[in-house]
């Protein structure tokens, strides 16, 4: 009997632990997703700034990360997630959903274009990454809360 209680307890603990894991809030998930996009931008930016040697494979890895971001971001801003986890999501995401969706579509198109271009030189990288960076900026401008510190 004691044994059954123990097993139940362990199972229950496991259940809550894993469900806790699985139910990581969307606010947290989208934060992590944006962080991954930012981290992927660093090597590309380093090359554009002349701090890193151009490397076609590294650039493509970054594009792939952005492609994943583009695929996942749309589902991570549901109704009811306007606040929480110090989110920097701006209310315009919910009040102007069409505009936000357009930004996501622009981002997807820019990333697809970059992958398609598969840049083989620094100049080509500049051409490929430019439109992606442009969407990062314009979407943040309209749909992210600015922490003027």
């Amino acid at each position, binding site marked *: 009997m004691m044994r059954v209680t123990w097993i139940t307890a362990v199972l229950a603990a496991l259940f809550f632990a894993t469900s806790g894991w699985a139910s990581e809030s969307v606010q947290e998930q989208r934060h992590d997703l944006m962080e991954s996009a930012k981290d992927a931008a660093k090597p590309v*930016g380093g090359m*554009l700034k002349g701090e890193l040697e151009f490397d076609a494979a590294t650039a493509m890895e970054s594009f792939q990360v952005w492609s994943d971001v583009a695929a996942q971001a749309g589902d991570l801003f549901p109704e009811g997630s306007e606040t929480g986890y110090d989110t920097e999501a701006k209310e315009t995401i919910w009040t102007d959903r069409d505009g936000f969706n357009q930004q996501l579509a622009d981002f997807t198109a820019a990333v697809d274009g970059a992958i398609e271009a598969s840049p083989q030189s620094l100049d080509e990288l500049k051409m490929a990454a430019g439109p992606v960076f442009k969407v990062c900026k314009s979407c943040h401008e309209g749909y992210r809360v600015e922490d003027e510190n």
Partner: protein
Amino acid sequence: MKKSITWLAATLLVLALVSWPLTSPLSLSPADLPEHIANPANGELVFHAGGCTSCHGETLAGGLELKSDYGTFVVPNISPDLATGIGSWTTLDLVNAMMLGTSPDGNHYYPAFPFTSYTRMNVQDVIDLKAYMDTLEPVENDVGPQDLDFPWSLRRGIGLWKLLYLDQGPVVPAGREDPVYERGRYLVESAGHCGECHTPRNLLGGLQTSRWLSGGPNPDGEGSVPNITPHQDGLASWSAADIAYYLESGFTPDFDTVGGSMVKVQENMALLPDPDREAIATYLKAIPALP
């Protein structure tokens, strides 16, 4: 704060009356302008460096209302519309406005218009700027009068303020012969008017040049404007290449994006040639590091 402003206002008013002759708006006469054939292509660069559109709008039609402790400033129409813009202005009118803060009808402008920075410009650049602005599209938009609280509504008092704060000298002199630094200094201290937001102001609204570019409260909203000196509270961790790249792309070294009122500034800076952004970076890495 309100009370001290009222006291300051009263003191200023008395001073203004006593010093009436000193507060007369200054103007240049046509003979003061140098011989210079206007170059509208350079004028376009000056236009971007000056960030005219940041306040006056993409079409320069004005109308933006800037709320402040002194009342509401209404941004004028500076498109070349004859009736509601500045289409009827002469080149001399623009020089007097930008470099002396004096309007064509001989009144002081409020220093919300950053003539305290533009006063350091080369007059040739202002002449070129006029030639470029004349090529732009006129937009009819009557923005109406300024809406300042008393006593700020009395423009004459600005004459006194100008005696204190209208200074054409460099803020951070080079002390060495470096044309790149000098170009950067010129862009930051005059046309770019970076100090207007990035330098804290005193109670009279004058820039505290001893705290040059060390950041300050956000003039048009909450929060603050960052320190951009090479101090650890500022841009110490940014390389010159980081600064130039930020102005070109809008991305910080951490690959965050530019935000707030800096977006429009950065987009104007992106229109300058590479060496100009590099010059700005050189200057910002060389000025005194302040907390």
